[in-house]
């Protein structure tokens, strides 16, 4: 069985390619596969009859108890014959049905063929999860096949509807499947049926599985998708929606019935819904003018009928159900194929436009007559045999005192009367001769070969009817798997039994109903439709759409401010609650370590409040800076000069960076539109602060062991060769972290630079043409900016290299002199800091920052020209080199066979600098130094130089044209809806930028 499926898989992948050469004959070729599978299955019949089953198992995912397990018993054998047999016929029929030029032929052939394989897998799978997989694949293939006419809106809609309805059922069923397999402790279908577990969990599981089965088999209330699915090409309807896919639900119920038919709810649901479906389907069928829809509703009706009989749960009913299943598959697919022929020949399926077909196509009429006879239950066809035994089985149960027997008997008998009526109406509609004026004149004679498929099926229907007693021997093992004794058997003639009279009565009443068709039609129009699930489907999807929209818009309405508020509120609520209810407050409580702490904390707190309060951006930045310097003071008082030094340098550089940015923003941030917002935010902010403080108190209060830092100084000295524990930690003990952090610096620096240079071009110049090739980064452009002439030798006469290039209004001689005097000493000191760092305050980070500060002053005094002269190197190269040194020294140690980042040292007394122990850590630290310098340089060039240049250009542009700055056209989306702070600032007026330009 696995081999057959593998062949199916391979051939279906190859089909689209085969279709390119073979065109519509591809169907004939691939039909060989299901034909072969049919013959193989047929040959297994004897073994299955004698041994009961053949099995095959391949391991797949043992953790899920999921295996490629196949098992063919009588029921599987019967269904495998149906799906491969009908599949072969339908594929052969397709060769004639489609022309060479049919669009999407390869795709269609592949899907239809794959479907045949999937159905074969579905009915032979023994692992219930595997069965479910095939189950869902059929849904997907059905979606693709129904939507085959992709250009038609209704066919796409019908495909989606079928997919959603069957997948809905499928997912519900999946839960049931998993529940039952967990309860049984096995995923084997045969084991699950044999176990026959009971209890509330089993009942729930089985009911969930039933939901899946009835959605697949188009039982009320899920029946509506099937008529809509008639938008598919007719072969699809014949195969998927008559013989195969819709039978999957029937199959599953038939499969589970031996073990679970007595479970509470089973009969109520299946018989109730089955009878209801049979009546609704047949009633609707009587109303249709489209021959295909007559059949579609007829199929719905017959599926209800099947559901009643296979769900009934007695051996006799099981045998009758198997027979009806076979009969229905054969006659219904025949009829669909007939409709396809009529559709092609006459160009319409509306029987009001058909006339005289019976005379034009006598053979087709005979074939149809045979299939109709089977459907209506006229002897000697298989349909009659099946119906006889069904009524026999119901009667038997009813006589034994089962109320469901009566319900099923009466319900299906009434349904059968309607079936006879619509069957007759179908035949009359298709083949009668009419005199009405609207009859279609279009007529193409179909190829004779197209009649072979339906003809074969019709003949089989007759033969199986006549030789039905022979079927017993093959089918009996299935009913015998039920509890109880099998009494009935399939035969044309049972004698004068009640079932026979019921059959006769049904035929008579059905004929009468057909006779009075005008009155019936009038009655139908008078009665409103009882169930309109299709409308239900649409209202559900619409409701889902609407609710989704509401929920999402609610969640997303506030943009960033709301997202932030949500995070903080969650923080306050969760941690506040935990802190409040945890009973974990520390018992002892130290207010401060030294009184200065209180003062510093107070200042920092006030500065923070001020920063939040003020609307002046510059003031806010400075106030934030105050908190930073508060940290410097705290570090200093704690006896960490190194941290204090670094922090002070960081704060300075930060403020510089802020100032560079702020000169391009409006001086004031805009006011919140609503007072409520301000209040709400204050509450959130204060709450966050309080909660953070509280949990910090709790966490520190519950300290149980000394922190690792207690031992660090000692380790740093003896193993790390350094007295400065901070530096040793940075470049040795936790150098791995430092390496990561400098890469953060690198990437941020380059990121900012790329953003400013690229966006400068994209935003400001827009489509006015890019002046430089796009791949060149701004950094490089600064060096090659055509605006800048090379510094002339004359410029040397000023204090700074670029002195001559700056408008005198912007020059400050005092600053220039200071910078001139201080720059080089600062660089020397920074290098000093770098090398002494291991033992004294300093290190690569602090050193780099100092060098960076020196560059800042150089820029402030001389502008971007000066900066370029000071460091004529691409900042990217500096950053890259720094990172290479740091990472390289890390990897280097690997080559000496030690752990990564292991340090080695070389100690010596060096004049001036004194005793120095140079190790691999020093190389690492140089890397850090370079990265920091590169970072500052990048920031100066982008936030400083490039912004200057853009500003200059904007000024020029403003003077020359009165053009609106494109920046103002950037839409203010709802990201900031409540705050109204423009993300990309409006270009400030020329005056206020020139003021603080330098």
């Amino acid at each position, binding site marked *: 069985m696995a081999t057959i499926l593998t062949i199916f898989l391979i051939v279906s992948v190859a089909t689209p390619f085969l279709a390119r050469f073979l065109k519509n004959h591809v169907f004939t070729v691939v039909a060989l596969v299901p034909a072969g599978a049919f013959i193989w299955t047929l040959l297994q019949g004897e073994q299955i009859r004698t041994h009961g089953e053949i099995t095959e198992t391949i391991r797949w995912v043992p953790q899920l108890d999921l295996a490629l397990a196949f098992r063919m018993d009588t029921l599987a054998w019967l269904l495998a014959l149906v799906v491969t047999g009908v599949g072969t016929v339908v594929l052969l029929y397709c060769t004639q049905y489609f022309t060479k030029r049919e669009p999407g032929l390869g795709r269609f052939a592949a899907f239809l063929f794959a479907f045949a394989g999937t159905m074969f897998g579905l009915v032979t799978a023994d692992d219930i999860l595997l069965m479910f997989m095939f189950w869902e694949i059929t849904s997907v293939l059905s979606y693709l096949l129904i939507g085959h006419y992709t250009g038609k809106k209704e066919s796409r809609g019908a495909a989606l509807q079928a997919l959603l309805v069957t997948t809905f059922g499928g997912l519900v069923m999946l839960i049931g499947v998993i529940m039952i397999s967990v309860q049984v402790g096995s995923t084997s279908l045969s084991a699950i049926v044999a176990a026959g577990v009971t209890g509330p969990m089993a009942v729930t599981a089985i009911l969930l599985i039933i939901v899946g089965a009835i959605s697949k088999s188009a039982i009320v209330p899920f029946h509506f998708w099937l008529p809509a699915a008639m938008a598919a090409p007719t072969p699809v309807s014949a195969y998927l929606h008559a013989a195969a896919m819709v039978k999957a639900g029937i199959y599953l119920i038939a499969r589970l019935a031996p073990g679970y038919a007595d479970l509470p709810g089973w009969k109520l649901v299946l018989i109730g819904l089955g009878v209801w479906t049979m009546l609704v389907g047949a009633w609707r069928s009587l109303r249709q003018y489209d021959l295909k829809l007559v059949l579609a509703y007829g199929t719905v009706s017959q599926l209800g009928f099947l559901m009643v009989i296979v769900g009934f749960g007695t051996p006799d009913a099981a045998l009758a159900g198997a027979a009806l299943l076979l009969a229905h598959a054969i006659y219904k697919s025949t009829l669909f194929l007939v409709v396809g022929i009529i559709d092609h020949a006459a160009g319409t399926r509306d029987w009001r436009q058909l006339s005289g077909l019976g005379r034009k196509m006598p053979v087709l009429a005979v074939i149809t007559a045979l299939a109709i006879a089977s459907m209506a239950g006229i002897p000697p066809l298989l349909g009659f045999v099946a119906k006889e035994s069904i009524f026999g089985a119901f009667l038997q149960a009813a006589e034994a005192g089962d109320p469901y027997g009566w319900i099923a008997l009466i319900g299906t008998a009434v349904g059968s009367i309607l079936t006879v009526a619509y069957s007759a109406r179908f035949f009359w509609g298709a083949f009668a001769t009419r005199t009405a004026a609207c009859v279609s004149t279009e007529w193409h004679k179909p190829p004779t070969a197209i009649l072979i498929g339906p003809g074969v099926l019709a003949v089989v229907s007759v033969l199986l009817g006549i030789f039905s007693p022979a079927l017993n021997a093959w089918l009996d093992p299935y009913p015998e798997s039920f509890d109880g004794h099998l009494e009935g058997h399939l035969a044309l003639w049972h004698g004068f039994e009640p079932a026979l009279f019921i059959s006769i009565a049904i035929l008579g009443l059905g004929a009468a109903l057909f006779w009075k068709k005008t009155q019936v039609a009038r009655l139908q129009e008078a009665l409103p439709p009882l169930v309109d699930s299709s409308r239900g489907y649409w209202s559900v999807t619409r409701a889902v*759409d609407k609710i*989704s929209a509401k929920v*999402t818009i609610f969640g997303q309405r506030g943009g960033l401010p709301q997202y932030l508020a949500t995070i903080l509120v969650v923080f306050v609520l969760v941690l506040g609650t935990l802190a409040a209810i945890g009973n974990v407050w520390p018992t002892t409580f130290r207010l401060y370590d030294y009184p200065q702490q209180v003062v510093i904390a107070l200042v920092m707190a006030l500065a923070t409040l001020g920063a939040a309060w003020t609307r002046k951006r510059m003031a806010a930045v400075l106030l934030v800076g105050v908190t930073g310097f508060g940290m410097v003071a705290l570090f200093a008082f704690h006896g960490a000069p190194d941290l204090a030094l670094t922090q002070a340098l960081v704060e300075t550089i930060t403020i510089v960076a802020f100032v560079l940015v702020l000169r391009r923003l409006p001086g004031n941030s805009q006011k919140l539109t609503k007072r409520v917002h301000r209040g709400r935010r204050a509450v959130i902010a204060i709450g966050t602060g309080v909660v953070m403080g509280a949990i910090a108190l709790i966490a520190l209060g519950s*300290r149980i062991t000394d922190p690792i830092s207690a031992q660090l100084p000692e380790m740093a000295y003896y*193993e790390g060769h350094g007295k400065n524990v901070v530096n040793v930690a940075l470049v040795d003990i936790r150098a791995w*972290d430092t390496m990561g952090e400098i890469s953060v610096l690198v990437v941020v620096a380059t990121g900012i630079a790329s953003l400013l240079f*690229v966006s400068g071009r994209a935003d400001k110049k827009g489509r006015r043409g890019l002046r430089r090739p*796009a791949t060149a980064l701004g950094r490089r452009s600064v060096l090659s900016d055509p605006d800048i002439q090379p510094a002339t030798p004359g410029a040397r006469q000023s204090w700074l290299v670029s002195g001559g290039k700056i408008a005198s209004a912007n020059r400050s001689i005092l600053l220039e002199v200071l910078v001139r005097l201080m720059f080089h000493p600062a660089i020397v000191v920074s290098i000093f800091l770098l090398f002494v760092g291991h033992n004294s305050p300093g290190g690569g980070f602090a050193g780099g920052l100092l060098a960076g500060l020196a560059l800042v002053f150089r820029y402030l005094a001389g502008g971007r020209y000066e900066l370029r002269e000071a460091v004529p190197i691409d900042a990217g190269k500096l950053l890259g080199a720094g990172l290479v040194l740091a990472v390289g020294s*890390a990897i280097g140690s690997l080559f000496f066979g030690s752990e990564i980042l292991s340090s080695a040292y070389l100690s010596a007394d060096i004049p001036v600098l004194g005793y120095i122990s140079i190790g691999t850590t020093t190389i690492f630290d140089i890397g850090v130094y370079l990265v920091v310098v590169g970072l500052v340089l990048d920031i100066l060039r982008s936030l400083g130089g490039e912004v200057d240049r853009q500003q200059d250009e904007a000024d020029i542009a403003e003077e020359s044209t009165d053009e609106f700055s494109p920046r103002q056209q950037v839409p203010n989306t709802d990201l900031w809806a409540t705050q109204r702070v423009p993300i990309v600032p409006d270009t400030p007026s020329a005056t206020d930028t020139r003021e603080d330009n330098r």
Partner: protein
Amino acid sequence: MNALVPLVVTIPLLGAAIALIFGQRPRVQIFVSLISLTLVTAIAAVLLVAVDQTGTVTVNVGGWAPPWGIVLVVDRLSAIMLLVSALMLLGVLIFAIGQGIVDDDNETPVSIFHPAYLVLSAGLFDAFVAGDLFNMYVGFEMLLAASYVLLTLGGTGARIRAGVTYIVISLMSSLLFVGAIALIYGATGTVTIALISERVRELPMGVQAILCAALLLGFAVKAAVFPLSFWLPDSYPTAPAPVTAVFAGLLTKVGVYAIIRTDTVMFVDVPLRIPLMVVAFFTLLVGIMGAVMQADIKRLLSFTLVSHIGYMIFGIAIGGDIALTATIFYVVHHIVVQTTLFLATGLVERVGGSTSISRLGGLLKAAPFVAVLFFLGALNLGGIPPFSGFLGKIGLFQAGVEEGSWLSYVLIAAGAATSLLTLYALARVWNMAFWRSRGEVEGYQSPLLESLAESPEDSGTVATKQTSRLMVGATTGMVGLTLLLTVFAGPIFGYAERAAAQVENVENYISAVFPEGSP
């Protein structure tokens, strides 16, 4: 073997440095990036096999023993995360190279893309191998800083706006994370994960709960867990296609990975089952509802991303071997599938000139192969059998049923509903963008499109662009990988099972870090 572990971080970092130095030579950059990520992929594969056979590998960086120094730990979970991310990064890199070669415009300035991309990779790998909480934070910072750069690549208005949301939220999550580290260090005096695990258990439960919650909040923002998830669809979809693919596939999963470690290693005793289940429920449903109303495919996928994080949280919440096995499998599956689908959407955007289903049409005819790629990815994401998404889902449902509480059943129902709605949203995309013909698009009316919202950053239909073979090839390779996940689901589940068992065994983790007993 130990020497290989740090290389997964240092190789991409060195690559980034070299790429930066050769900023003006795209070919060198491409070469360096490809070599770096190929090497890491190979190393990750070797590590995976080695760790699976011989057990957890630890490295004391610089020879400094934990808890003073930094320890790197690679167990089975880390190894599979490493391998899958490396494969994704490599695949997306090839796609990006293909796109860059075709475009050669300023949307992807090559010179910054490669260094940032490699730093992102290094950060990601570092987070997966970190045995030290602070180092994990550093890894997060690396990948976040790089992601800021990648998200704002090109600096268009839309990307800057998305970038602001993303950066501010990410900084907030980092702040929560580093705050939590400070609290944990305050209480336990260490940042070595293995030692935290031991010492935390000596604290009163109330304190444990506070520390755990503080840490989880930071991770939950990153992993986009409800209600901390709304930012994600506002930021991810605006980036260039390959960048979005990497973000979607990998960045949220780092958060999930960290949550797994928090729950199973650091805070073993804290009862997280119910709170995690509740948030998983809302993550699943609220997320997928967002997807249902999107017209824009990239935004739609971002919402499914959020939603499906709920499955993983559900698995973590149940806990135990079966649930963790399924979760690990699901994480692997989801990384691959989300990345692939975003790449496929990138192709769609180029072929169709838009990503809005109200304007796309006729793609099946125009680009049948892209259609196949998208369809396979969509089915897989929707959890349709036989694909890996379905297998992961079965595992989670089985674990839920075995756990058996009513909350579990509610979650299973929510999971099934999410699966259906995912399929609904994606099938609608298929109906509109692939089946519907180009000619129908104008003035098209359908109840299916009534409640759809366009992306706020919608830029209308732009000119279609060529797709290079490299782009299609990379996407095809990734789709092939998703199929392999299905075919070899058995061995992968087997590995996930062993990984889960290892994750569950905390003492094993601790003794791997402290072979001579903890200090």
